[in-house]
């Protein structure tokens, strides 16, 4: 394990995220069928396939990789998650300076969350991807403060995101399409929070493999 995560890692992360999202396409569709319109798995799969098709192995900066991801997601995903993930990766790219140490990981996750909130105006407890990114950020900050390296910071973030996604189950949605269901949104896991956990887990997996 190295001390910092570089552009090659970022490329590996996004490739891994694409594989995982493709594998979980139907699961995400089913989650979205329950409280939304059933396209989240298809949207993420389409977007990340497009990203991977454009990933330039010669990209030398983490920031550059994330910017490419942002632009491609914005122009291929559509729906609510397209602009939200697009802005997330755009702000993450802005936040990433050079290779990432654990503070860099915190900055990237903080940038992503900030972007999502800026666009989507959601806060925690509204049953959205914010409920995965928020605990992820807290966990990464805690890990960084404890002197844990970037891979460990991503692992802590991923685990927290996964727990955050699961914690959306009892929530009633008040943002996004699921809010139309009122109380009927209770009892289902939010698709966007779930894809967030998958993406951060891919980051941790690839960071640990560096």
């Amino acid at each position, binding site marked *: 394990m190295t001390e910092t995560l570089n552009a090659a890692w970022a490329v590996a992360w996004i490739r891994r995220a694409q594989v995982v999202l493709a594998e979980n396409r139907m699961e995400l569709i089913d989650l979205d069928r329950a*409280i939304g*319109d059933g396209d989240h798995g298809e949207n993420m799969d389409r977007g990340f396939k497009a990203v991977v098709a454009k990933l330039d192995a010669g990209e030398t900066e983490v920031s550059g990789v994330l910017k490419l991801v942002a632009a491609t997601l914005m122009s291929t995903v559509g729906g609510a998650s397209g602009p939200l993930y697009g802005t997330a990766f755009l702000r993450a790219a802005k936040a990433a300076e050079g290779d990432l140490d654990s503070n860099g990981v915190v900055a990237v996750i903080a940038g992503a969350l900030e972007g999502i909130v800026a666009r989507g105006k959601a806060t925690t407890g509204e049953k959205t991807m914010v409920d995965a990114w928020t605990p992820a950020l807290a966990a990464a900050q805690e890990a960084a403060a404890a002197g844990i390296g970037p891979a460990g910071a991503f692992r802590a973030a991923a685990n927290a995101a996964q727990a955050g996604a699961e914690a959306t189950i009892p929530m009633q949605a*008040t943002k996004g399409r699921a809010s139309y269901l*009122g109380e009927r949104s209770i009892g289902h896991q939010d698709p966007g929070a779930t894809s967030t956990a998958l993406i951060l887990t891919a980051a941790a997996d690839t960071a640990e493999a560096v």
Partner: protein
Amino acid sequence: MKKLINDPANVVAETLAGFQAAHADLVTVHFDPDYVVRADAPVKGKVGLVSGGGSGHEPLHAGYVGKGMLDAAVPGAVFTSPTPDPILEATKAVDGGAGVLHIVKNYTGDVLNFETAAELAEMDGITVKAVVVNDDVAVEDSLYTAGRRGVAGTVLLEKIAGAAADRGDDLDTVLAVAEKVNAQVRSMGVALSACTVPHAGKPSFDLGEDEIEIGIGIHGEPGRHRIPMAPADSITDQLVDPILTDLKPASGSKVLLFVNGMGGTPESELYIVYNHARKRLEDAGLEVTRSLVGNYITSLEMQGCSITVLLLDDELTALWDAPVNTPALRRGV
């Protein structure tokens, strides 16, 4: 899932190719990014009207491109809002120098993508205003929702705003007309069956043999509540009541009554619903002076319908009656 498709990934592209070939006299389809403009776009000096959203609601929106209605339509993937790029390109393609109105149905995805496109268009020097349609009374417009959805009222708004642009109104005036329609229109829908999104391959929700969903949107989302199957008149009451409660029309008001099919319901059933809905409106002291019955904004092959009531005044009536020449709505030309 049995559908007349080749590959779920190509549904929108092949639909557009067929649409272009069948309606070359009225529209031009651009591919990659995908958008549809009227054949004579841009119309110099006229405000351009652009709408769009996920596909699967045909004939909305591409079917309403043409003289007297939309200048461009931007179809996303099935039930998925389009990305900013094609919205931007469509906006550029129809700008005749008088600015462009974006007609956006109120969904987080549509709003975000249209907002981004509008920002980009403004950077290119095009004035863009937007109206966000939110006529669905099934959803409370409160802090605890993403606000009311935009559903069948969109068709009426596109027609009426299109007529305003066609008669030469400037952007602010067209916007004001559009806002007026949005303020005076309310809808509510019911599903007797779910629909199957091609890429999902299974029904959007599972409904028992004797259950129906009241208060559905147009994306195969489950509705507000599930009730046992009932006679058409009773179902109609459950759609009309919340509309009247919300709209609170003064007795003696003139209205347009629009019964819209979700795609899989026979026209005969729509007329049965219309018949009772009209009686209910008349009992409430309203005068139904204009009507629309048919499949105008659908959810793929879903069975069900929505009822829409629009308060009319002389101006809106005249704009509704104005000539329109699109693949899906044609009159007076």
